């Protein structure tokens, strides 16, 4: 049976890892376990080996850049993970049954833009902007993306926010682009179809960004990072 390091030694390891510029708490946990396992192994082989000496030997096996490469790789892996989730969500609307919802939305928007059915294109633009503002307000109140803590302290939430933060830009870009290029009264047949597809994607993203993606993150945190006790609203 292997001897485990004491609480104090584990605390020392956290301090050491932090001193090596690992600021993300989730990454610190992973590195501390690795260092602790290696130190325990060394101390079993040589009982007289001190904790500090063993730590220095174990750390010596890391490259000259310390933990930097590890953080960079973990960061790009997490970004790739979120991109995959995002693509999975969007591709879901290209398959049954969700494609029916997407198709209906595209058709409805086409009717509005081409014929001015139900509401005028100007009213549609105002509705989209209102929805985007409501979404921002909702997320500001119930979300977590404006929190510095989640951006800076955890790599898992930091990468989520940096990726989905980029998506946010398109909510406003599309309607702005839409309003800038037209007088908001009439659109050509083809133009209205293209805009309908574009605006449908934006609307679906707005929904996902407000309700779906935060749930996805919460699930991820619960399944893989429950030890960190990250409390999202």
């Amino acid at each position, binding site marked *: 049976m292997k001897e*485990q*390091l*004491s*609480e104090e030694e*584990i605390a020392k390891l956290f301090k050491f890892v932090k001193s090596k510029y690992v600021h993300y708490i989730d990454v610190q*946990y*992973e590195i*501390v*376990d*690795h260092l*602790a*396992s*290696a130190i325990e*192994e060394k101390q079993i082989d040589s009982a007289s080996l001190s904790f500090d000496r063993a730590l220095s030997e174990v750390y010596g*096996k*890391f*490259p000259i*850049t310390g933990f930097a*490469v*590890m953080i*960079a*790789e*973990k960061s*790009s*892996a*997490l*970004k*790739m*993970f979120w991109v*995959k989730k995002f693509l999975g969500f969007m591709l879901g609307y290209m398959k049954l049954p969700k494609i029916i919802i997407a198709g209906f939305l595209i058709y409805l928007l086409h009717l509005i833009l081409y014929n001015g059915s139900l509401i005028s294109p100007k009213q549609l633009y105002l509705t989209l902007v209102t929805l985007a503002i409501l979404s921002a307000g909702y997320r500001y109140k119930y979300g977590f993306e404006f929190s510095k803590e989640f951006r800076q302290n955890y790599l898992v939430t930091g990468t989520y926010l940096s990726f989905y933060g980029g998506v946010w830009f398109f909510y406003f870009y599309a309607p702005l682009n839409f309003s800038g290029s037209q007088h908001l009264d009439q659109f050509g047949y083809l133009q209205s179809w293209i805009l309908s597809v574009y605006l449908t994607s934006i609307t679906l993203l707005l929904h996902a960004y407000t309700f779906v993606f935060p749930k996805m993150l919460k699930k991820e945190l619960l*399944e*893989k*990072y*429950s*030890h960190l006790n990250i409390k999202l609203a």
Partner: protein
Amino acid sequence: MLPKILMHIFVGMNRSLLRGSLETIVIKLLSDNNEMYGYEITQKVKEITADQFKITEGALYPTLHKLEGKGVLECNTRSIGNRFRKYYSLTEAGQTELAIMLQDMEDYIKNMRLIINPQLS
């Protein structure tokens, strides 16, 4: 001086060969052992190869994270006494990836043998 240079070249070559095979090694070990943690993987490789292959931490963790990002591996964290440990295991996509990787590796070894020892072919 010369033996030192030769030694360096040899060790360098060995490392680059190992680095190129790291993903296959990790996936195969996880397939055989169901789930493992980072340090355990480094030790297992040392044990199997009688200290011939030494995977450094600087190479292992980036590989694990890369495979995790690709969806080949998944992980879960559990408490072990006074700290937490992250265990890696293969996903379904990882099982498929393993079969492809092993086939690629076998073909590679076979072809390398043909090049190194043409008289055996």
